[in-house]
């Protein structure tokens, strides 16, 4: 799984994030009060301006203190009734229709069928829930204003804070309902689509040639189901009785085979549901460093010129190596050996055997004694997960036995080195590319956690839509919220790089000059007035963009659906950090919506 931005531990992240939040919110409040003062001073003089600002503060405190949960629930209930009678459930029907026809374009016979199905349902759930949240939230309040139904609400003892919060809660509840249905449907759809079994072809059972001790006693094939079949290996115990077996890995999964004997002595082979398909792996990640050709430890590998710098490469046939340091390894936790899983990038300077992958050597090393053992040779292929289980008993360099946890783990620490074997070929590594598989969590719970991330996004879009709709009409609110959604979802990284001046070719003004001059982005612009003006304009633009980036929510970061599609458990820490981030946006959005509604005339 690609983890470009690691989510920091909550306790490490929170103090800094909270301080930054307080700073931004304080700046917003100060700006709002200053603008109010200037506005009212310009109309009625400074004394009136000051009075209005003080009134605003006092009203704000009072309206927040005397907020009524019953009224909020009444308004939320109205929002739910409104959404329901405006046929919001059509989104669910649409989702079901899409799932019903998905078999036309979703291929179950691929190595990535689980990822394909999961990304399909999660992608559609995200899209539909965000669209529903968007349309519900932006049109409700402007419609109330246009149809004047708001007159009969604000002439009751209802505070503007309750109107804003009632809508956020109501539409949030509708979105929650939709997502619950979508989550249940998605889970059922994926499991039903991918859960399958086969039959062992008993007539093809045969004893393999050159069968060794510990190897399979019988081999066969399975029937062809879901456009694939497996090779079957059955094992016997000391008495020569077949006890069970496994299949090989096809399309990213294997099956366990159980053996049942009926009262007549008839043996039946039952192929169990697939393994490693719908999983939630809990990995233990290590720290990655590199060793250069001279054997010196460094934090960067070799660049092969890829624009995406996520992976650093090691060259084959040299001392170049990637080095993972794992902590907290306990022998009791892994009684059957250490399961290592890895996905490496591959860069070939010559074609080689394209079918086989580039061989890499996995070496385990004791960080204290520096004693090392070659654990395995793997042939990683790009985008394919390779699994090895390092046994507890290993063979040392001198041929003697080596105990994995006694001889190679020191104070819970273990080093795993990866070397690329063939000269002239490269393997690419990132910290999350190799990990120890701790355990497997519940897939069902993981899907629920994935939907929790979508729920946070939906809630935020609802709050943004409601806030915009307190001062904009429906279509303009829609455009404003949609822009926030698009920029917050797809352009945050680009905008952050623009603010930091990392984008080649400068800002918009410099780019304009380059376009007119047809100048390459790698060349410096010639000094002169145009360059000076363009740089000044770009600085100003960067300032505006900095404020925008500071205020815009990074919507994509709130969701962890990639964990679910890649088969990894979503850590509780991620949920905690993302939930707090969402709350950090919801509170100011609610306040802004409240202040605007409070200060505007409802009637015309």
């Amino acid at each position, binding site marked *: 799984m690609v983890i470009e931005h690691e989510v920091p531990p909550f306790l490490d992240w929170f103090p800094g994030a909270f301080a930054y939040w307080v700073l931004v919110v304080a700046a917003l409040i100060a700006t709002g009060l200053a603008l109010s003062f200037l506005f009212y001073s310009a109309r009625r003089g400074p004394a009136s301006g000051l009075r209005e600002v003080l009134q605003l503060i006092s009203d704000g405190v009072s309206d927040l203190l005397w907020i009524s949960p019953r009224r909020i629930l*009444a308004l939320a209930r109205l929002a739910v*009734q*409104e959404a329901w009678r405006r046929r919001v459930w059509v989104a669910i029907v649409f989702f079901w229709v899409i799932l019903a026809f998905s078999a036309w374009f979703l291929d179950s016979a691929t190595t990535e069928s689980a990822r394909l199905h999961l990304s399909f349902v999660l992608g559609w759930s995200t899209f539909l829930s965000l669209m529903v949240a968007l349309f519900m939230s932006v049109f409700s309040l402007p419609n109330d204003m246009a149809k004047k139904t708001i007159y009969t609400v604000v002439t009751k003892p209802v505070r503007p804070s309750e109107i804003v919060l009632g809508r956020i809660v109501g539409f949030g509840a509708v979105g929650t309902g939709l997502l619950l249905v979508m989550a249940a449907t998605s889970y059922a759809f994926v499991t039903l689509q991918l859960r399958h079994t086969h039959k062992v072809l008993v007539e093809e059972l045969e004893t393999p040639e050159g069968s060794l001790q510990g190897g399979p006693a019988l081999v066969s094939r399975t029937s062809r189901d879901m456009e694939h079949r497996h090779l079957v290996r059955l094992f016997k115990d000391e008495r020569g009785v077949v006890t069970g077996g496994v299949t090989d890995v096809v399309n990213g999964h294997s099956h366990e085979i159980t053996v049942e004997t009926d009262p007549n002595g008839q043996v039946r082979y039952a192929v169990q549901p697939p393994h490693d398909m719908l999983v939630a792996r809990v990995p233990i990640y290590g720290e990655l460093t590199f060793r250069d050709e001279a054997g010196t430890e460094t934090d960067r590998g070799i660049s092969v010129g890829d624009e995406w710098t996520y992976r650093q490469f090691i060259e084959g046939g040299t001392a170049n190596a990637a080095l993972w340091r794992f902590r907290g390894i306990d022998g009791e936790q892994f009684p059957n050996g250490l399961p290592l899983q890895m996905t490496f990038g591959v860069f070939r300077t010559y074609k080689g055997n394209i079918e086989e992958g580039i061989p890499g050597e996995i070496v385990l090393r004791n960080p204290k004694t520096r004693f090392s053992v070659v654990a395995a040779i793997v042939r990683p292929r790009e985008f394919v997960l390779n699994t090895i289980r390092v046994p507890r008993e290993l063979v040392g360099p001198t041929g003697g036995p080596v105990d994995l946890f006694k001889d190679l783990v020191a104070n819970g620490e273990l080093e795993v080195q990866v070397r690329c074997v063939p000269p002239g070929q490269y393997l690419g590594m990132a910290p999350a590319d190799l990990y120890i598989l701790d355990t497997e969590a519940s897939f069902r719970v993981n899907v629920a956690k994935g939907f929790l991330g979508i729920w946070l996004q939906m809630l935020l879009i609802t709050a943004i839509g409601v806030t915009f709709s307190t001062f904009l009409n429906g279509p303009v609110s829609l455009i404003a919220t949609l822009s926030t959604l698009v920029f917050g979802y797809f352009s945050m990284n680009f905008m952050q790089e623009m603010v930091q001046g990392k984008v080649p070719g400068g800002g918009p003004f410099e780019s304009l000059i380059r376009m007119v001059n047809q100048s390459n982005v790698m060349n410096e612009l010639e000094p002169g007035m145009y360059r000076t003006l363009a740089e000044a304009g770009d600085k100003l633009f960067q300032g505006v963009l900095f404020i925008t980036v500071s205020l815009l929510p990074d919507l994509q970061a709130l969701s962890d659906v990639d964990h679910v599609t890649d088969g990894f458990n979503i850590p509780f820490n991620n949920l905690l950090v993302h939930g707090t981030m969402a709350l950090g946006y919801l509170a100011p959005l609610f306040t802004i919506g409240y202040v605007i509604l409070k200060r505007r005339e409802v009637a015309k």
Partner: protein
Amino acid sequence: MPSEVVIETRNLSKVYRDFWGRQKVRALKALDLEVHRGEVFGLLGPNGSGKTTTMKLLLGLLFPTSGQALVFGKSASEVTKNERLGYLPEESYLYRFLNAEETLDFYGRLFDMPASVRRQRSRELIEMVGLTRARRRQLKEYSKGMTRRIGLAQALINDPELILLDEPTSGLDPIGIREIKDLILKLKDQGKTVVMCSHLLGDVQDVCDRIAILHEGELKELGRVDSLLKVRDVTDIQVEGLSDAGCAEIKQVIERHRGRLKSMGNPSTTLEELFLRIVRDSEARPGRRAPAEPVER
């Protein structure tokens, strides 16, 4: 005359401006007004005279450009004043996807009313406005008159002390108009204060104790209806069962006292009275044509 002031405006003015802050229209000019507890007060004036603007300022739907609007002694922008207030807008701006019961339940919740009270109050009000049979129908299926009725019911959900009615009889049939007028008088009897604005002068005359006449945003007249309408140099006598000889004798008396007889004869009833009598008679005896003979008085 009850002395407690429920509504007070001081130099209340409203200027509507465009997006750029330029003055569009001066809707209300320095209005000074007091409405006392227990009276039915009418705001009269032609279209665009400032009646509805005044009402919106009193409700806090608009902010005054200058001056003050006080309701129960509090600023009109104060939310808590709404706990004692009911408002029927010009057109019943209600959520058309709700039915009558849901509508009243929703507005009851906004008053923090407990469920049992909401249920009882809704039932009473629906019965009072004659919508019992249509209580489960969505408001989008209601006629205009039915919508006005449920609008009135929502204005009364909290049993308010002050009721603001904007064109309360618009869209209603004569029976509905009479019922509304009767209701206003009933509310007055219960000690409630009613402020209504209308340009149907007959309605205002029938129910209002005092009126204010606005024109182009300015207060032109303010006072009690009976004193404002009284024609001081004409005397009206209505006698029942008088013979022709008696009529002749009265004429002589008038001449003897140098009075000028303007008219003498049998009065006619109003069209409203005639209509209501026919409808009531038709309801009492379905299928029969109502008698067309003039009313004996």
